[in-house]
């Protein structure tokens, strides 16, 4: 098995990236935008550039996706609304 980077390299990469604002779950993001998760999902399918989750955890019905809230807000500004 060949690793792409060592633990040290990985640790340095994370450290160099610096802190970021806390991640938010999909439901929290939807609540902040004032829409339901279902509506937000529809927007994401319709308008390109929606951020991908940083972490996709869980399995079955117990799942949660965590997103970079700044990236989500930046994309949300590009979404036309009535």
């Amino acid at each position, binding site marked *: 098995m060949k690793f792409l980077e060592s633990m040290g390299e*990985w*640790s340095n990469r*994370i450290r160099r990236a610096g*802190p970021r604002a806390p991640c938010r*779950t999909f439901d929290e993001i939807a609540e902040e935008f004032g829409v339901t998760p279902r509506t937000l999902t529809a927007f994401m399918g319709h308008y390109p550039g929606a951020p991908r989750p*940083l972490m996709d*955890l869980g399995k079955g019905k117990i799942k949660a996706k965590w997103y970079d809230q700044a990236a989500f807000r930046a994309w949300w500004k590009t979404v036309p609304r009535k």
Partner: protein
Amino acid sequence: MVENGPTQVKRALFLDRDGVINDNGSFVHKIENFVFMPGIFGVCRQYQDMGHLIFVVTNQAGISHGYFTEDDFQTLTAWMVDQFAAHGVTITKVYHCPDYDPIMRKPAPGMILQAAREYGIDLARSTLIGDRDTDIEAGRAAGVGTLILVPQTNL
């Protein structure tokens, strides 16, 4: 000791337990098997003197696997907190999440974010020490400013 006054932003030190506070045996749940890592009390005292609140964030999957009970964990935790107190270190709170919870259980940042909400912690000025990639991922997802990965130990 620097007090966190009402106008002062609180900082925190988040510690994983197994592998950071104690040597990482297999599902440590008995006091007689709990061996503190060398220097852990001194590190905590230094952070405490710099005004950090100290939290433990640990998954403790052994409970959900049935290797030990919630009561075993709580008994050991009370003893561990007393040992820290005897060395002049106040553990503000111990968070754990033995169940498969994608919000709370590391690598999810839920336990750290809960501590930040409950105690008004400035996460960007806080520190996390862990011995696994999941610890670091959780800290990074929570926006913890300083992430320290220590080598894994296994006695």
